[in-house]
């Protein structure tokens, strides 16, 4: 197996009395794509936010290449550059053009030359088919386009690991696909990714490993085929059942062309 990039041991996160993550252990290897699923409120997003040091943690340890990540510490500032994150809400900077959005951090943080960063940004934009939008402002883009740009913005920092926090959850159904395709492409290129999503068929297609998180803990961990066909734990079965039930209803109604996950 490839070298481990990210190691999480006994991670505990509390909001006041409320324990959201209760001793999570997870190791991510280079080139691995991990999809995290689970009912809402299970701590999926919190886990990503802890990895990116957006939250302080109450216990355990998170290491990137053996170096500890802690909210507020000076070394975390450096480490964070190696972690890219894309959020659910469109988080592009509204006062900057698409190109400036992408080059801001490479130029200001990594002190790269503006031309070099812009050149790379244009290459990436071309790859996702948005080169013509380089000088547009975020408000002129559709939700799907914004999320694709947000992914490119994260990529341009050359992160070693990418975190995706329900990036399609706020999108209209017809725009979900274009964003997921970009992510599939990244997986094909061998990027290391940690994805939180509700798109089950996408999870199945992209994941090397599926992690089922419930009540602050990893309940089940398996290859996608295994997890979706034969979930071992009762909680995972129940969780997946919600989706299949949803599906049956829609099929009965007769039209669900946008939902292609016909058999989970």
């Amino acid at each position, binding site marked *: 197996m490839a070298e481990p990039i990210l190691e999480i041991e006994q991670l505990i996160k509390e909001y006041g009395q409320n324990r959201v993550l209760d001793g999570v252990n997870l190791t991510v290897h280079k080139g691995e794509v991990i999809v995290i699923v689970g009912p809402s409120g299970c701590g999926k997003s919190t886990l990503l936010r802890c990895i*990116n040091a*957006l939250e302080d943690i109450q216990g355990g340890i998170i290491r990137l290449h053996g170096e500890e990540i802690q909210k507020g510490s000076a070394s975390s*500032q*450096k480490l*964070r*550059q190696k*972690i*890219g*994150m894309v*959020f659910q*809400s*469109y*988080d592009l*900077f*509204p*006062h*900057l053009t698409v190109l400036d959005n992408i080059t*801001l*951090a490479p130029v*200001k*943080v*990594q002190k790269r030359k503006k031309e070099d960063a812009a050149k790379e940004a244009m290459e990436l934009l071309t790859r996702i088919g948005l080169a013509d939008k380089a000088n547009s*402002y*975020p*408000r002129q883009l559709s939700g799907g386009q914004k999320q694709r740009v*947000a992914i490119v*913005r*994260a990529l341009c*920092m050359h992160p070693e690991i990418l*975190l995706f926090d329900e990036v399609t959850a706020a999108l209209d159904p017809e725009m979900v696909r274009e964003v997921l395709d970009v992510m599939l492409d990244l997986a094909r290129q061998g990027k290391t990714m940690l994805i939180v999503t509700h798109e089950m068929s996408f999870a199945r297609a992209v994941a090397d490993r599926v992690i089922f998180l419930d009540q602050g803990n990893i309940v089940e961990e398996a290859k996608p085929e295994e997890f979706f066909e034969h979930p071992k734990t009762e909680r995972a079965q129940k969780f997946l059942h919600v989706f299949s039930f949803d599906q049956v209803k829609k099929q009965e109604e007769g039209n669900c062309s946008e939902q292609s996950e016909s058999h989970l």
Partner: protein
Amino acid sequence: MNWEFIIKYLPLYQRAAILTVKIGVIGIVFAVLVGLVCAAVQYYKIPVARQITAVYIELSRNTPLLVQLFFLYYGFPKIGVRLSAEVCGVVGLAFLGGSYMAEAFRSGLEAVDDVQKESAFSLGLNSRQILGYVILPQALSTSVPALVANIIFLLKETSVFSAISLMDLMFTAKDLIGLYYKTTESLFLLVVFYLLILLPVSIVGTLLERRLRYAGFGD
């Protein structure tokens, strides 16, 4: 309308208008500075300074400028602080305007979504860079309409300076009415000069606001 009278006293109004604008502009600049400091203190929740700022804002917003000026100009010399009428005007305007400007900046800062800070953070920008490249540009542009409204409000408020014997437009008009009974002409000049000061600001403000709203980057 006696045009001869108007032409004769035009220079007097001109001088008065310049005084009004001068004190107004200096006062507004200080008001913006006070407002920025107060907004920063509240944004970063600096202890003690935060409480002092809160008390100042309440005092400033709930008392009339005229009373503030009387207190400064007639009251303060009795405890040994003697300020010229011009300085009183500037201090009064800054005291009054500071709280309004603070409010404008504060609402601008609050309008910047948390996810903006977080995504800048996850791109590796440090807090100074996040403030400079992400938060301030957005906050300031959101504040523009309120800032323009405040500037117009403060320029209008300068009309009370005559009460502390500054020879401004109101003072001149009142003087001429008292001396020559040329009420119509004096009032006409008064209105014209205030329009000359206030209309351009109002028009520029409207244009700026429209630009920010339609052509700009607002999400």
